[in-house]
Structure formats: C-alpha cells, structure tokens
C-alpha cells in the first residue's frame, strides 16, 4: 500500500517537489500559500535529495532565480499568490520568450490590488491569456484536490520540459488550505549534472565544453525576421499543446442536456450541484477543465449539439466563461454564475442560479 498522509494542498506541493526530483525552490511568503516554503524549510531537502530552497527578497527576485536555474536545465519552481504573481509576470514573459521550463504555483486569492486573502479565481485571464508582455502562453493546470496539488507538480515539470515552457499550477485558496489524504508517489531521483548535459546540452548553460557551441539563453532578437520566426516557434508549440495535451474530467455528461463548466474548488462544489439536479430529474453534467491552457475547446464543441445550455461557474466576475463562449460560438446560451470577494458559494446557491438561468 502506498503511503497516505493527511495534509493541506499547499503541503502536498512541497512534498511532491521533494519527491519528484525538483532541484530548486525559490519563493517569497504570501498568504494563502506560505505553507509551501514553510514545509520545504522544515523538511530540509538539501540534506536528503540536494534540492536547494531559498527565500528570496521579493517575487520579482524569486521568478528571476527560477530563470537562472531553468537556464541551467534544472527543475526549478516557485510559488506565490495573486499580488506576488503580478510581480512575476515580467519574469514569466522572459521565461516564455527564452523557452525555459519551470513551474510556478499560484494559490489564487481575491483581487484586484491587495484584495483579500480569501480564495478567488480572478487570475484566470492573467494565467491563461498571458499576464506579462508579448504573445506567449503557459501550460496552466487547475487542481481541485490535495492529491492533484501533489500530482500536478510532477506533471507540470513533465509538460514544461516537453515544450520548454513555463507551467503554472493555478490553484485557489480553498484547494491550498483544505486538508485531505494524499498518496505519496515513489521517490524520483534528481537528474545528475551529467544527465542534464546529456539531455539539454543543446540549449542549457551547463558550461561551454570544448567542441560544443556556446549556449546563450536569451529572449532578445533585434532582427525582425528572426524575431518573427521565434514567435512562430512559440505559437507552433502552443498549437501542439492544444492538439496533444488537453486534459479535462467529465461527470454525468453522457446524457446531459445542460453542462456546468467549473475548475478548481468550484468544480468540487458543482459536483454536488450536479447530484442535486439529477435527483430532481434535470440532466445536468459537469465539465472540469484540468488544463486551462490548452483549453478543452474541442470537447465543448463535441458536447454542444446534445446540450440546451452551458454555464460557467467561477470565483470571478466571469473570465473562463469567455473561453467557453468562444468554443460554443453562439450555438446555445452560455450562462454565468460567480461570487467575488472571497465568498465561495454553496452547491445549493449554484443550483438556484442554474435553475434561474435556464428558466429565463
């Protein structure tokens, strides 16, 4: 039997990092995700796996530390919450432009500004549409349980290195703070420097050995033709992600006439709403995007012919709903229900909103 431990979602991130062979964590404290660095410091992985853990002077610095580590072909990560991730957007743009793999965890709280330390999903646009400057995307994974917080660390690194791109775990305060049992996966060793050279010597700054060309990691290309090519390369990667790496979960969608689209903690809540609806004979299903980018556009397309309505339920003023509407493209009504300010609606509240919307 694999080891199962009761822990917070945030703690799961820390344990997963140590156990999946992460080389370095660089972060700055911010509620509601400080347990990630606290757990790492308590575990002292530098004594066991050799993983480096460092508290940076700011989120600006931690994302640039990630940049340095990623340049070396190392598995590096940081974590923060909304205001901190805003500070990291400069770095994220550079990481994307320089085609560097890394993991950034955003345990989202309510905004804008200093906002609230209560949960939110108002950073969807920032995560999925860019956030920093320029035409770039990240792999964005949305966990809805502590187990997924754990499992998505390794998955994020896998996708980040597969595409040489930053990956983000877009969690929320609920998923970060709630305690659940988590199954610890088998330990994976960190790559040795020799293995890194073997795998990534075409681009990583592992030291210019005789006979190998100099490796320069940069996002700069002043020549317009070269710069357009660089952008085309990035865009081609994003299209490939959309083809090969869309992940989602469906609950009771097979015979559904209505589908709620929700991610993270809201998907957990909407599962109960689906049960309520089914008891009343309403054929409601749930589509839970696991990758917010790439978005399950094709799956929504596939579902639309059997549906009367869709509804996006979010802890925001309506962000993911725009992507749902783009996928639906006007064929059926797409409703929206959201709460703000850190208020998490109950399954009943969602159900009432759903009924009101379909009976409009």
């Amino acid at each position, binding site marked *: 039997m694999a080891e199962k431990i009761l822990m917070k979602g945030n703690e799961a991130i820390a344990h997963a990092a140590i156990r999946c062979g992460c080389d370095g964590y660089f972060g700055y404290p911010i509620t509601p995700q400080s347990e990630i660095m606290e757990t790492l410091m308590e575990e002292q992985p530098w004594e066991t796996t050799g993983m480096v853990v460092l508290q940076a002077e700011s989120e600006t*610095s931690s994302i640039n530390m990630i940049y*340095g*580590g990623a340049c070396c072909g190392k598995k590096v990560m940081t974590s923060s919450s909304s205001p901190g991730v805003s500070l990291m957007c400069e770095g994220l743009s550079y990481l994307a432009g320089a085609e560097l793999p890394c993991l950034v965890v955003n345990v989202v709280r309510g905004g804008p500004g200093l906002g609230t330390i209560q949960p939110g999903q108002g950073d969807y646009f920032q995560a999925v549409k860019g956030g920093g400057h320029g035409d770039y995307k990240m792999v964005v994974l949305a966990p809805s349980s502590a187990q997924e917080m754990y499992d998505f660390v390794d998955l994020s690194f896998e996708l980040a290195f597969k595409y040489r791109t930053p990956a983000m775990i877009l969690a929320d305060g609920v998923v970060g703070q709630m305690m659940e049992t988590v199954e610890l996966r088998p330990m994976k060793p960190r790559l040795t420097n020799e293995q890194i050279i073997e795998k990534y010597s075409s681009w990583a700054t592992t030291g210019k050995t005789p006979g190998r060309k100099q490796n320069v990691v940069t996002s700069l290309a002043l020549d317009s033709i070269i710069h357009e090519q660089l952008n085309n390369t990035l865009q081609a990667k994003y299209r490939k992600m959309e083809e090969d790496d869309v992940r989602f979960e469906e609950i009771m969608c097979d015979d559904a006439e209505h589908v709620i689209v929700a991610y993270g903690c809201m998907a957990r809540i909407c599962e109960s709403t689906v049960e309520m609806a089914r008891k009343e004979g309403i054929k409601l299903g749930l589509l839970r995007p696991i990758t917010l980018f790439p978005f399950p556009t094709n799956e929504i397309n596939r579902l639309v012919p059997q549906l009367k309505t869709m509804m996006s339920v979010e802890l925001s003023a309506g962000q993911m709903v725009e992507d749902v509407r783009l996928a639906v493209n006007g064929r059926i009504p797409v409703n929206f229900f959201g709460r703000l300010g850190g208020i998490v609606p109950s399954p009943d509240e969602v159900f009432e909103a759903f009924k009101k919307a379909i009976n409009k």
Partner: protein
Amino acid sequence: MDVNDIIKPENMVYSKTPVLTSTTMHYCPGCSHGTVHKLIAEVIDEMGIQEKTIGVSPVGCAVFAYNYVDIDWQQAAHGRAPAVATATKRLHPEKYVFTYQGDGDLASIGTAEIMHACNRGENIVVIFINNAIYGMTGGQMAPTTLLGMKTATTPYGRTKELHGSPLRITELLAQLEGTCYVTRQSVHNAASARKTKRAIRKAFENSALGKGTSFVEVVSTCNSGWKLSPVKANEWMVENMFPKYPVGDIKDL
C-alpha cells in the same frame, strides 16, 4: 620581409585570447565595455575556467556581451542579473558565475536584487560598469549621473533638488557583511586596465574560495552619451568622475 616572416612565435608580443570571439563589437569607439570584456576573457583564459564559467548579461549596451566572450551566457531581465546568478551559483556551486551590469541596471532598477545578493554573500562576481548615463536608450540620466551633468532627461543638468544626488552604490554594498571584496577601478589607460584585470582575477579567485560576493566597479566612459571624443571623455572622466567615484579598494577581506 613580408608579414609571414614577422608573425612567428618568437616575435609574438600579444595575441587575442581565444575566449574573446572575433565578432566585431557594436560598442562605440572609445567605450570602456570592449576593454572590460577583453580583461574578463583574459582572466577566464588564464585561470582555465572557460568550461566552468557562466555569465549573466544585463539589459543595456552590454546585453550583447555574449557575442564577444565565448562562454555560456544567460541574458537577464533589466536589473535582475544578481537574482539569476544567485540560483545559477547555488545550483552549480562548482561553477564560476558572474554578472555584468551597467549603472542603470544595477544601481537603479536592480537595486533590490544587488543589495540582497550581496547581503546573502552569494559566491558570485559582479562587474559593474559605471558611466553615469544610460547608453543603450540614448543618454538619459542614471542614478550615478553627476550633479550638473546634462543628459537627455536632464537637459539643463542634474540638480539635487529635482533628481537627488549621484548614488555611490559601491560604498553602500561595501557595508554589507556578505561582500568580501569591493573595489573601484577604471580602464582609461594601460596601467589602470592592468589593475582592473588584477581586480577581476581576484574576484574570480574569491568566488572559488567561497568568500562571498566580489564586486568590481569600473568607472567608465560613454563617448556617445557624454558627446565627447574618446580622448576628451577620458580626460573628463578623470577630472569629474574620479572625485565622486574615487578609484581603489573599498573592502578587501
């Protein structure tokens, strides 16, 4: 006697280090960057650490440093090089990691990063080019711009009342416990270039010894920004920059 008779090993008095590439530099004539690049390349060559050295280039004129020094490079966002170098060195303790930064990069937008990297005593080398102006963007005021100095954003001269006084960040960094070697040098003549090279070598050696952060400021010229010929710029630097930025070791532990 033709050129092939002259170019013989016994006649060789100078050769370019192979660590310096043959790429034509984009720097303006008289600019200090080229000289400092050459000194770094020579130190890397003489110490035999080309395979073990990783440079972090800034945003500014030296953004293209990677075109000239033949080692692996990481191009950092504006001011963030010390953070980038921090992780690189911690993940590769056996490597020599250095940042190369200008005054806008290091002493303005990157103040937090340099202060904290130095305060943590990261075992890195910092080469700081102080020419008292933003070169790349066209000669705007830098934090190190002298009072009275005319720049694109201080067309009537920098005043203390409007812009504050020139920032002597090197003296500030010398106060931090993490720095082991803090020095200010220049490269305006052969003797000063030789001294700067010795300082750079010492900084790299400190890094291997794990003594903390070594910081080498090079008071430099920017002919285009200062609108002076190379010779005049050197004279102006000695006359005006040196009183505010005196050359010599500030800290050597």
